[in-house]
């Protein structure tokens, strides 16, 4: 899957360095209240499934100094994921 690109007008937990990048879902953590709603006093519902997504470092940074096996793992809410 790929991480969506966007700067919603709220507090969001998808750092810009990971937006638009392709990764692989590693773990489903369960569903959690959506921080984009919580941050502005909302109830966070519907809860969003939260996934740990794995990226290969050399896919994120073209000049990555390290092993081609090195990974970056980050937790991303489902509404930020899009199929490829």
């Amino acid at each position, binding site marked *: 899957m790929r991480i969506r690109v966007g*700067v919603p007008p709220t507090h969001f*937990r*998808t*750092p*810009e*360095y*990971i937006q638009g990048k392709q990764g692989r879902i590693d773990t489903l*953590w369960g569903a*959690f209240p959506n*921080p984009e709603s919580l941050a502005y006093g909302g109830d966070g519902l519907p809860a969003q499934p*939260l996934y*740990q997504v794995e990226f290969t*470092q050399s896919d*994120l*940074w073209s000049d*990555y*100094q*390290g*092993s081609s*096996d*090195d*990974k*970056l*793992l*980050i*937790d*991303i*809410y489902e509404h930020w994921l899009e199929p490829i």
Partner: protein
Amino acid sequence: MTQNGHNHGDNAEYYSQRAAAIQALLIEKGICTLDDITTMADKIDSRSPEDGAKVLARAWVDPQYKKRLLADAESAFLELGYDLPETSPKITVVENTDDIHNMAVCTLCSCYPRAIIGRPPVWYKGLAYRSKVVVDPRGVLREFGTELDESVQVKVIDSSADYRYLILPKRPAGSDGMSEEELAKLITQESMIGVTQALSPEAVRAV
């Protein structure tokens, strides 16, 4: 970086004034009481790296406990008397091995497994660590004096949401026969973030 230029840890005076202003507003508007705030702060301050080290040292000596800790950290904490506050984010434990070295960061702010090891070190909240570790983790490891073989896979975990990551460092060579209490002294705050390995038994004896 986020647009609002979050920069915790790099300008302590400004942030302490800001925190005081926010606290005053929360109380004035009746959102919470001073008591709520001090109770929560006391809860966080009641934990320290020694608490995490105690849990992780148990995992080194008891393979069954380690299994439970990696599968369900919060239940395993409870076995040793560590009850996480209801408001705490979830915590999970990740094991470093001969082949895989994990390190934790929060690139967005300062998310950290506070409910088990207390407040993070200042550098963890600083822009330098947060921006560099995702791009050049091996460079950061070297800055902390950590030498890793090229063949070891490095995994950076960005705790960007509802989970906090506590790293179980690799048990160092030469630590056979040490007591659980002695082993806990090898497990430092830095090693539980993953920027260093656990101390070697020689390093501790030399102190």
